[in-house]
C-alpha cells in the first residue's frame, strides 16, 4: 500500500514539476504553430475575413512569388555564418588556449555588447556606414570608394550587420568546446610525430565539432529569419524573407500567405539542420575511424 503510493508519487512528481511550464509552451508555442498551419490554408481578404478552404495553392504562390527573398535569406545567412566562423574560431581558440589570465576578461568583452540593445547597435552601424559618415569619407579619400559609392544600403552592409550581430553566438559555443579539449591529446599527437597542422586537423578540429555545430546553428537560424539588419542597413532590394513575413502580417494583413511563408522558412531550416547534422556526423565517424 505504502509502496504503491510512493511509486505513484514518483511517477506523478516529474509531471507536476513539468506541468506549468509545459502548459505555457503548448498553449503559446505549439498551438500557435498548429493554428498557423490552419491560417495558411485559408483564403479571403482583410476586409471580408478569411475562411478555411484547404488552399494549398497559397504555398505554391508564396514560393514562386518570393523565391528571390528566400534565396537571399539563405545566401546572406550562410555567408554571415561562414564569416562568423572565420572571425570567431581564431578568437575562441586564442581565449581557450593562449589567453591565460586574460581569459575571463576576454569572455566578458564578448558578452558585454549584448547589454546594449540589438536594434540600437544596428542603428549605430547605420551611422558609421552613412554616406556622409567618417568611414565613407575616409574610403573616398583613399580612393577605395567611388565619388558616389555607398556603404550603407548595400548587400555588403546587410551581411556585415548580420555577421556583427551573431558573432558572439558563434564564438561562445566554439570556446566552450575548445576549452573542454584535454590538451594532453594534442601533445600526444605531436609526440607521435604528427605535424602541428595534422594534429590540428585530426585532433583539435574533430573534438571542436560539437561547438562548430552549435555555433553555426545558433548563427544560421536567427540570421535566416532576421529582418532588422535588412530594414536598417539595406533597401527593399536587400530585403529578406523576414521582412516579407513582417510586412505581410503587420502592414498588408495577408495572414494566409504570411503563415505559408513562415512554414516554408521553417521547413527549409529543418531540412538544413538535418542535412548539416548528417554531413558533420558522417565526417566525424570517418575521422574517428582513421
Amino acid at each position: 500500500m505504502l509502496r504503491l503510493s510512493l511509486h505513484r508519487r514518483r511517477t506523478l512528481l516529474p509531471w507536476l514539476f513539468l506541468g506549468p511550464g509545459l502548459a505555457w509552451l503548448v498553449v503559446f508555442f505549439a498551438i500557435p504553430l498548429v493554428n498557423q498551419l490552419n491560417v495558411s490554408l485559408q483564403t479571403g481578404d482583410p476586409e471580408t475575413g478569411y475562411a478555411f478552404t484547404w488552399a494549398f495553392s497559397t504555398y505554391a504562390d508564396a514560393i514562386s512569388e518570393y523565391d528571390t527573398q528566400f534565396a537571399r535569406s539563405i545566401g546572406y545567412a550562410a555567408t554571415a555564418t561562414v564569416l562568423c566562423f572565420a572571425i570567431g574560431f581564431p578568437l575562441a581558440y586564442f581565449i581557450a588556449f593562449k589567453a591565460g589570465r586574460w581569459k575571463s576578461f576576454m569572455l566578458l568583452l564578448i558578452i558585454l555588447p549584448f547589454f546594449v540593445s540589438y536594434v540600437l547597435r544596428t542603428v549605430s552601424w547605420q551611422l558609421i556606414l552613412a554616406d556622409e559618415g567618417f568611414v565613407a569619407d575616409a574610403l573616398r579619400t583613399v580612393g577605395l570608394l567611388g565619388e558616389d559609392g555607398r556603404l550603407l544600403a548595400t548587400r555588403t552592409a546587410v551581411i556585415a550587420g548580420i555577421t556583427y550581430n551573431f558573432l558572439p553566438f558563434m564564438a561562445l559555443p566554439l570556446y566552450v568546446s575548445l576549452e573542454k579539449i584535454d590538451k594532453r591529446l594534442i601533445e600526444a599527437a605531436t609526440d607521435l610525430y604528427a605535424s602541428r597542422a595534422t594534429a590540428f586537423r585530426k585532433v583539435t578540429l574533430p573534438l571542436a565539432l560539437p561547438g562548430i555545430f552549435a555555433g553555426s546553428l545558433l548563427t544560421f537560424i536567427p540570421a535566416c529569419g532576421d529582418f532588422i539588419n535588412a530594414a536598417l542597413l539595406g533597401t527593399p532590394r536587400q530585403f529578406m524573407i523576414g521582412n516579407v513575413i513582417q510586412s505581410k502580417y503587420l502592414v498588408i494583413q495577408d495572414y494566409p500567405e504570411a503563415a505559408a511563408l513562415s512554414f516554408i522558412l521553417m521547413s527549409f531550416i529543418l531540412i538544413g539542420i538535418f542535412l548539416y547534422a548528417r554531413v558533420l556526423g558522417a565526417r566525424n565517424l570517418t575521422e574517428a575511424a582513421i
Partner: protein
Amino acid sequence: MAVEAPPAVAEPVVAAGRPGRGMRGDRVRTWALGLWSALALLYLFIPVFVIMVFSFNDPQGRFNFTWQGFTLDHWANPFENPDLALAMKNSLLIALIATVIATVLGTFMAMALIRYGFRGRSLVDFFVFLPLSTPEVVIGAALLALFLTMAVNTGFATIVIAHVMFTVSYVVVTVKARLEGMDRHIEEAAMDLGATEWTTFRKVTLPMIAPGVAAAALLAAAISVDDYVITSFNAGQTITFPLFIFGATRQGVPPEVNVLATGLLLIVLILMALNVLLQRRLARRDAARAA
C-alpha cells in the same frame, strides 16, 4: 626563414634544431592569434563606442548622425522625452514579470528533466529545445495569429506572455547545465539524516543550484529587455525600448536613447564588478576559515 648561424659550441642536433624554431613559430602564431582576437573584439565594440560618444553630441537637427558639439544636457535629463521614458519603464516592468515567471517555470522543468527518468522525457527535452531553433519571426507571427483568431487584444499582457514563452527554454537549458554537474550524494545524505524532501530541496538543492538559477534569470531578463522581433508582433499599441528605437529611426533617434543605453551598460558593469569583489571576499574568508 633566415639560415641560423652555426652554434659556437657543438650541441646535439635535436636540442638546437626543432624545439628552438618551433618555439619561435609558436610565438609568432600566438601574436598573430592575439592580434586577430583584439581586432575581432574591436569589431564588437565599434558601434558601442559610437553610441557612447554620441550620447554627448549636441545635434542641431533631428538626426544624431554627425558630430556637432559636446554637451552634457542629455545626461542631465535622460527622461525628458515622455514616450522614451514610458518605453523604458514598460521594458523593465515586462522583463521583471516575465523573468520571475519564466525562471520559476523553467527551474522546475529542468529539475524534472534531470532528476526523474520518466517516459517521454526525451520528447519533452526536444519540445523545450524547439523554440530555440525556430526563427523569432515565425514564433512572433504564429503567436499573433493565435491572438487574432481568439480575438485577444494585443498589448502589455500579450508581450509578457510572449516573453515568458521564449525565455523559458533558455532558463531550462541554463539550469539543466548546472544540475548536471551536481553531486546527488549530498542530497541523499540530507535525506538519510532524516530531512524531508521539501527541507532537502530548500536547504540543499536550492542553495546549490542558486548560481545557475541566477544566471538563467539574468539571461532571461537580458533577452526580454532586448527583444524586438517577437515583441513587434504582439505589442499592439504598447511601446518598449527596442520598439521605440526602431520607430525613431525614421525621424532620428534622440541622444537620450544613447544616454539610457550607456547608463544601462554602466549599471551592468558596476554589478559585475561588485559580484567579482564579493566572490573574492567570500573566497578569502573561506581560505581564512580553512586555515
